[in-house]
């Protein structure tokens, strides 16, 4: 970790600390206060939006481990979210399992199926692997929409509410905390995974798999591990998504959803834990802003009624293009540059 001028690590514990300086502690505490008090001062709409943000962060975090760290491109991540969602829905509604038991199962099943689809990764990479993972998107969603007796087919199935000791997480207010806590845990796990032996092996494979193998890293093992963890996170995201929506249909897990996940990751910054968080929040805020703009424009100036039908996507697409031109390494990189500039101030070069 880069540290501000004058701060030197003197022990291993200091070297491995995620939060190292007093300022970082202060910022962390302030961030936690903000996040935990958010539902008390934010509007119901934003609480609902933030639930989606937390769940997306978990899913995109998985994709970041798989693609950003291990370099295994995936265009079928939404299918693994679907597996998690349907696992939770089926276990809770058909077998009356508690959510707390169904959720880890969702992650495990999604992770294991991810490993199956990751098997070709030993032989193929790049665009070829993209096509293989694209197959996962189609195969999995196809099975879900055809297996009527289990998944309800195209008409879907309803999902019971999450309960804990008699308390029902029935409102967005309470579900916010549930989603946030799981997201924070996921971020912590991803952070530690990324700097563990596994994470370093992933980076080595991503940067040069032949060199990594010569140095003793088993590419097959670590690629499959990347698929497992990446899809495990996706399964957890799906598992949280299902009881929130309370109704699942295969149409909720589209190829476009997988593309958006890649978009979140690319805009946020690949290969960093900050990336998915920044990407999801940035795109969500942009989306909300354009939605508000469309609504206001259509309400206030009816003459724009026809025009606004297209404006939302124009603004959205334009922002993404501009972003990719001026900051192709993502928001996380920009954030690092801001921090570095601050640390060297007033002697920045």
């Amino acid at each position, binding site marked *: 970790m880069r540290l501000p001028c004058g701060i030197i690590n003197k022990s291993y514990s200091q070297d491995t600390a995620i939060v190292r300086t007093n300022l970082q502690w202060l910022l962390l505490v302030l961030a936690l206060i903000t996040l935990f008090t958010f539902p008390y001062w934010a509007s*119901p709409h934003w*609480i609902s939006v933030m639930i989606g943000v937390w769940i997306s962060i978990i899913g995109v975090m998985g994709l970041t481990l798989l693609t950003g760290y291990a370099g295994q491109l995936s265009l079928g991540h939404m299918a693994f979210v679907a597996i998690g969602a349907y696992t939770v829905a089926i276990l809770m509604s058909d077998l009356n399992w508690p959510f707390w038991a169904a959720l880890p199962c969702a992650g495990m099943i999604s992770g294991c199926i991810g490993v199956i689809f990751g098997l070709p990764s030993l032989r193929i990479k790049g665009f070829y692997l993209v096509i293989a993972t694209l197959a996962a998107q189609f195969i999995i969603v196809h099975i879900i929409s055809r297996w009527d007796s289990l998944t309800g087919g195209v008409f*879907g199935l309803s999902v019971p509410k999450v309960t804990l000791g008699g308390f029902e997480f*029935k409102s967005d207010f309470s579900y916010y905390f549930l989603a946030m806590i799981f997201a924070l845990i996921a971020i912590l796990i991803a952070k530690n995974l990324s700097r563990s032996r596994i994470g370093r092996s992933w980076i080595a494979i991503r940067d040069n798999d032949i060199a990594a193998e010569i140095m003793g890293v088993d590419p097959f093992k670590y690629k499959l591990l990347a698929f497992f963890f990446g899809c495990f996170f996706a399964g957890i995201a799906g598992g949280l998504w299902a009881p929130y929506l309370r109704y699942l249909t295969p149409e909720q897990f589209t190829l476009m959803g997988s593309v958006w996940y890649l978009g979140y990751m690319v805009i946020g910054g690949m290969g960093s834990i900050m990336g998915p968080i920044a990407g999801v929040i940035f795109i969500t805020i942009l989306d909300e802003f354009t939605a508000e703009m469309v*609504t206001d424009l259509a309400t206030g100036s009816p003459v724009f009624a*026809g025009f606004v039908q297209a404006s939302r*996507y124009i603004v959205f697409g334009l922002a993404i293009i501009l972003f990719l031109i001026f900051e192709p390494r993502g928001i996380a990189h920009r954030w690092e540059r801001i921090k570095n500039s601050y640390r060297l101030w007033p002697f920045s070069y």
Partner: protein
Amino acid sequence: MGRTLVKTLSISILVIILMTLPLLIACSDDDEKTENAPEELPDIHVGMSALVTGPYGAYAPITWGYLDYMKDLNERGGIDGAQIEVHWKDCQYDVAQSIAAYADYSKSYDLVAFTGMGTGANLALAERCAEDGIVLAAIGGEPELIWPAQEWVFASSPNHAIGALGAMQYAMEQWDEGRVARVGIAYPNNPFGQSIIGPIEEYASELGYEVVEKQEFELTALDAVSQSLAFRDDEVDIVYVQGTAKSVAVLCKDMDRQGFIPKMVIGPLHVIHPAFPELAAGTGEGVIGWNPFYLWPQDMDNESVQYWRDKALEYSSGDIVSEEDPYMSMLYMWGLSVGVLLEAGLREAAAEVGAANITAEALRNALENVTNFKTGNSGFQPGIGFSPSNHEAYSATSLMQVQDGVWVRINNMFESPWKFAE
């Protein structure tokens, strides 16, 4: 060392307290927090997760129709003087955004009704509306939403099954071959596509046809060779295509290419697009499409259609009118139909409890007492009514046909053979 330990411990404890405390508070007073009813307002609040942009942005006239009806209703004095305030947001047919909009409006206002768009969104909203006791005034289309009737869900217009059966009834009235007609169905594998299969099969013996072939056919398909060959091999007489103008055109062209011309091709309301004859490159002649509204430019002799055409020009949706497009005006009417549903329920509720005391429950109860509701400007559709076992506004449809490259009305509104489970 000791100082560091104390510091680490104290920060850890602080963080744990910060994380746990709000959670406990959230769990304890959850109901109290979420039911923070706003101050009493004279207005009647309704909400909508609208559709204006995004992949399905072409359906935006539905939103404009709904908003225009409410504006018109307010200009006509509202419900016994009480104005209706519509809270809406463009949710792009997206389930999560629809739920976010619902969460926002249902917590911020005393909503009596909410309108969602899209099967997925409506199915998810139906559960929430039932839990919160808010009427879901659904834009019709999805039979699974209202059959069997759900306590809080009401549909503003006939669903796809009703329209399909109406069209099949008409087809059989025209059938004079002296044998049982052979019917083929082409459908996409989604709720929209699946919704018509069961009813068409169920009514086969009653109406006098036989379903001999069912072919999956995606809305975005670029060709329909296998489907055309299957229909040809099974000697299908009538093809019912649950598709859009584009997909029906693809099927017509490919059937023609295979040298197979069925006696009749029928599509849903989405087929009555002015571009269809051109898309079908001359092979769409005679294709029939059902729709449950009178619309412009075909029905300008209908006073209500004239009224709304002028209103659309006056309010906001000039492009809908100037294009003289039956498809756009059909979507617009679809939106208006939700307004009619709400006006019917609200007027009935006002008569029972007074306009100032209308609640969601009063609206729900009132809707079930509505019979043949019609106003001077709702004549673009038949009178609407509900009962405890029927939450669909009406079960009539009308038909249009491509003649000489344009859509022409071939009959007026008639009752579909669909029977609600009593």
